[in-house]
């Protein structure tokens, strides 16, 4: 990947128009279904005074709030599917949470190149390379070699509203 291509990719991703709000329903004939949801992580203090977190419907969200974006997948067919790759662009208004799984495969250049965050670098405004950080992440990706018939699962990433 040369630097120029990375930059162009970055431009393209950041300039993606906002998608229509209407949900896109997968065709019924499709053997695989994807279902997205989002929860807000709220810290609550119980009667004993100790704090714990719980997932709530994100009815009220403000900058700094923590969200969990989830995608449920299922193979409803009688046949296995292979090379199952789920790609999720991060909305511009959120950043990947710092405690995201370090093994999560991410892109910091608009899905042009991929790796774990520790292996990636970005070019800063002075033209110098630096290690990529969670705020640089543009996409996350999960790869499953195969899904057996009837198998389902869930993929999640944590994000914080910028």
């Amino acid at each position, binding site marked *: 990947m040369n630097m*120029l291509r990375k930059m162009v990719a970055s*431009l393209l991703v950041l300039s993606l128009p906002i998608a229509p709000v209407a949900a896109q329903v997968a065709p019924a004939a499709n053997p695989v279904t*994807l279902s997205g949801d989002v929860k807000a992580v709220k810290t609550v203090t119980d009667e004993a005074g100790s704090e714990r977190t719980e997932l709530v419907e994100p009815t009220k*969200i403000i900058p700094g709030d923590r969200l969990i974006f989830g995608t449920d997948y299922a193979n409803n067919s009688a046949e296995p599917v292979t090379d199952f790759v789920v790609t999720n662009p991060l909305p511009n*208004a959120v950043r990947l949470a710092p405690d995201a799984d370090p093994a999560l495969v991410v892109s910091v250049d608009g899905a042009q190149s991929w790796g774990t965050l520790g292996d990636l670098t970005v070019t800063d405004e002075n033209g110098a390379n630096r290690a990529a950080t969670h705020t640089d992440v543009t996409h996350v990706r999960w790869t499953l070699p195969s899904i057996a018939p009837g198998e389902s699962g869930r993929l999640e990433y944590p994000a914080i509203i910028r």
Partner: protein
Amino acid sequence: MNTQIFSNMAFAIVGATARYAKSIASPVSHFARPFGRNLRNPIAILESKLGRDLQTSENKDICGLARALNGLAQNQNEASMYTYTGSVSEPINLSSDHGAARVFALFGAAVCAAAFGADIAHAEGVSAGTLIENTATATYDDGGGEKTIDSNTVVLRVDELIDVTTTSLDPGPITTAPGEAVLTFEVTNPGNGPEAYQLTANPAVAGNDFDTVVENIAVDTNGNGTYDPGVDEILTAPQTTAVLAPDEAVTVFVIVTVPDDATDTQESDVELTADAVTGTGTPGTVFAGQGVDGGDAIVGTTGASATAIGELLVGVTTVDLTKAATVADPFGGTNAVPGSVVTFTITADVSGSGSIDDLVVTDAIPDGTTYTLGTLTLDGAPLSDASGDDAGEASDATGISVDLGTVSGGTSHAITFDVTID
């Protein structure tokens, strides 16, 4: 004879006079923020890189931004071309070749934020009303080739966070005499939505040596950081700022009257409180439906209320004159007889925390005596008798006059001159 002389001397001692203009240190009022707070704003970053103002009325268009980017790219010998559509109020589409992309890469997310509705423009958070939309896409092989499906798109709208900060812009206590004094504050909207703030000035702060009277609250209409009567708008009750955009700040002046009985070195604080008009409360308080686009407004960590303190220090400077005389008679004694030389010493003691301008000390030559030419001194240094050549002048007819200029509190100055008893 002796009695008469001393009577004259006594008159002369109380007759020394001082004229002066009172000088009080002016409030320091330079609050220029060349980029300051706005440096977080990507447009401001761009401006600093380009060296031009993109936010004045003639430049406040995205076309100007794109042209500026083009110019930058050309300066760097990069072939570049932008096309742009849309206007200030609409999202724009930028397309570019590699040169322009390089410019974008240089400025990174900041430029994109500037160009695409400032989704990430605010250091304090994305704008209220911003939609967060998340869609996952899967590719797989079901044995019949690669297929692609999208998940549904989940959409969240960012609610409005109401916050406020208030800061005193005075560099320290404002030194003032009884009368009008101006305290300067800054009110900032650190929230992510537009908000106006109601202002309250409280002159009765615990610990005050005296309380001032709040006359007015004004906003810095011309943006020069200094209160300009007749120019800067005085707010009418309930004193409320204009609606401030996220990260926008306004300079506010609190004009107070210091009472006449305030004495030197006394201190007084004035509090300025800014309360969000939407409402205040403990962090997390929700004002349903009162945010941007009908979303909720939620009180942030500041409680949507912030108070800053401005300090006043009274500087009253006074001059006390004392006059003393020593007598040397022609016989080596100290008797006041004809021919005796009387040396007068006028001491000007300046007290207080300020300074005094144009202090002039004058005295008459007592009846029955004659001024001894060339004996006028100030702080031990001789002054000529002629007028206009130095700080002093002296003659039998007009007496002595010494211009001390500006003198500071805590200093003392001595003037001497001799007379001979007739």
